[in-house]
């Protein structure tokens, strides 16, 4: 009787440890957000830039760390230090952009095209105002949707 109880306790302990380890493994290895299939907040590049370049907590909470689909006119296409394509969408300020780092490079997009880009909105950042360089709104892990 005591032997049976001991076996049950050992089995229960092993099962409990295995369950915890399994849950831990699943959490540790959970995938990044699926941008392509996610529902996005739709907005145009000028409005997004206007909303985030003014330091308002309310507008930040609407867009920052959210998946957004931004429609805008391509100003320039660049490559970053890792070779990923960076598409700059025009805003109402000449030196400022919605700066989108792409997951996939495309040869079809060119300056002047109006496109929609879906990605995670990181937020707005600039340097000190006395340097005269306006900041950008940044999107990361982006895909074009049309």
């Amino acid at each position, binding site marked *: 009787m005591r032997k049976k109880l001991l076996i049950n306790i050992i089995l229960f302990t092993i099962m409990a440890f295995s369950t915890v380890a399994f849950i831990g493994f699943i*959490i*540790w*290895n*959970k*995938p*990044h*957000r699926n941008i392509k299939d996610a529902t996005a907040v739709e907005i145009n590049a000028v409005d997004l830039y206007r909303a985030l370049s003014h330091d308002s907590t309310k507008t930040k909470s609407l867009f*920052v*760390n959210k998946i957004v689909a931004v429609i805008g006119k391509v100003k320039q296409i*660049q490559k*970053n*230090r*890792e070779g*990923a394509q*960076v598409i700059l969408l025009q805003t109402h300020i000449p030196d400022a*952009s919605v*700066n989108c*780092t792409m997951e996939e490079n495309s040869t079809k997009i060119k300056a002047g095209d109006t496109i929609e880009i879906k990605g995670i909105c*990181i*937020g707005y*950042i*600039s*340097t*000190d105002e006395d*340097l*005269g*360089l306006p*900041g*950008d709104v*940044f999107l*990361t*892990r982006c895909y074009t949707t049309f």
Partner: protein
Amino acid sequence: MKRNLFSFILFLFVLQQANGQLYYTKNGSISFFSKSPLQDIEADNNQVISVLNIQSGQIEFSLLNNAFHFPKAKMEEDFNENYIESDTYPRSSFKGTLININKVDFTKDGNYPVMVKGDLTIHGITKNITANGAIIISKATISAYSSFTVFVKDYDIKIPTIVSNKISEKIQIKINCSYQKK
């Protein structure tokens, strides 16, 4: 009236000269690496704004902490929520000077060792640091590189006791930026 006009033209001239010395990037790269017994931790941020004044040697970097991309989603989540606290401290920055900028010949291709000194702000804490780096001039393109170490405790970043033996106190930061003229 003439005097005011002259002053205005002089101001515009000075402004243009100052702008002529400014180089910038909005897609610079900063990465960090931490060796740990369980798993090495590394992350990249390729959305770094940096401005370099090649005359005065003034240099600035600004980045959003939530733009660091980790191989694992859970690492990214822990970094933003528990360690760097991105909601409270969204931005990290550096503002300093290249001490030996006069040793760099911006008209001639080459790899010029430089030393940078200034204020590094992470997690709302500002510390004065000095780091070695290099300015590389290649085909009229200016690039800046640096690698230095920071300690998490210097920036009041608290590591939970349960994982403290798995995460190194020492973080290696690497900077790699390529500039264009403003």
